[in-house]
């Protein structure tokens, strides 16, 4: 299996999740790992 490019996102709320969603639409060969220290994302995500 080819290794995927790896994207790390620190912070899983409005900005982080928007970036993740859009990056996945652009490239299906990305492996995305988002780190979120809280338990919720906000109303604005």
């Amino acid at each position: 299996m080819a290794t995927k490019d790896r994207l790390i996102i620190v912070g899983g709320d409005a900005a982080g999740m928007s970036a993740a969603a859009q990056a996945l639409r652009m490239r299906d060969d990305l492996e995305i790992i988002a780190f979120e220290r809280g338990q919720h994302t906000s109303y604005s995500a």
Partner: protein
Amino acid sequence: MRRLEDGATYREPVDQLVYATGAGPRWLEVPGARSRGIYGVATLADGLLLRQIVEDERPQRAVIVGGGYIGIEMAEAFVARGLDVSLVELGSEVMGTLDADMGALVSAALREAGVKVYLEERVTGFHADGGQVRAVETDRRTLPADLVVLGVGVQPRSELAAEAGLPLGESGAVRIDDRMRTGIPGVWAAGDCAETFHLVSRRPAYIPLGTTANKQGRICGINLGGGYARFPGVVGTAITKFNQTEVARTGLSEREAQALGFEYGVARIEDRTRARYYPDSALMVVKLLAEKGSGRLLGAQIVGGPGAGKRIDVVAAALHAGMRVDEFMYLDLAYAPPFSPVWDPLLIAARKAAEQV
């Protein structure tokens, strides 16, 4: 990385990295500020906890420190639940993102709802009893309190990025370009931890809002995925409300225009949200600034009844377009009696401002 459940630390290899760490609430550095019963509201969990405390512990007296949008939204919530609410603000009026003459209208709305508003007062400490807050000390008085909420602003969470050597702007937030690049290849930043560009002042700005965080995140995702997108910047648009009073601003306030050295004309008018004779027609005040000489619109502020606030978006669009006030004053805005007077209050304000530039 450190896993919070068990404290294990580990490393993740990475090709690209996005900082989207947001902003954290400021805390007051005064005696007693870590007492139980003093809360910030930054997350959904904070809000849920506060609601539970109000329901379970039945606090009688709430003191809110800070009269920004978080402070006045919390005041609204506490008044609705029957608490006795005091609000302490260091500035000359609440809503410091507005000019004082407009903020005064919001202070008046708070007072009308029974909130005790203390302006130009500094919180100097908190009295606690067995670790539980009992009173707020200001430089002028002591306010008994069962519950304290701090709404004294936020600061960018940029420590991680700074440690990694990313340049920060004057605000302390991560400096990024219009494609959300940090200057280090493969490293990006977006949202409240990052700066943005102000299209009216033509300078970097730090205005942490959900609107911008979503857009910057989207732009960041497109670019790091190999596409091309640019985020030109913001004009400083924001909105909030207290009970029936809507509060909105965009562009530069008079205070900001002065600080930046703009020469400007200004109009402040009072009019109505709907035709005068129409049910629920309410008062609204509009303040509008335009640059002397060029006539370019610089900003607007609105305080008024239901239907007033979202009108700010028209001015925001005009600011994005770099419109002059004499162009703005004949805009073809929608009219029927349930929605506005035949001259929308924004257009009346623009007519007046045009005479000043």
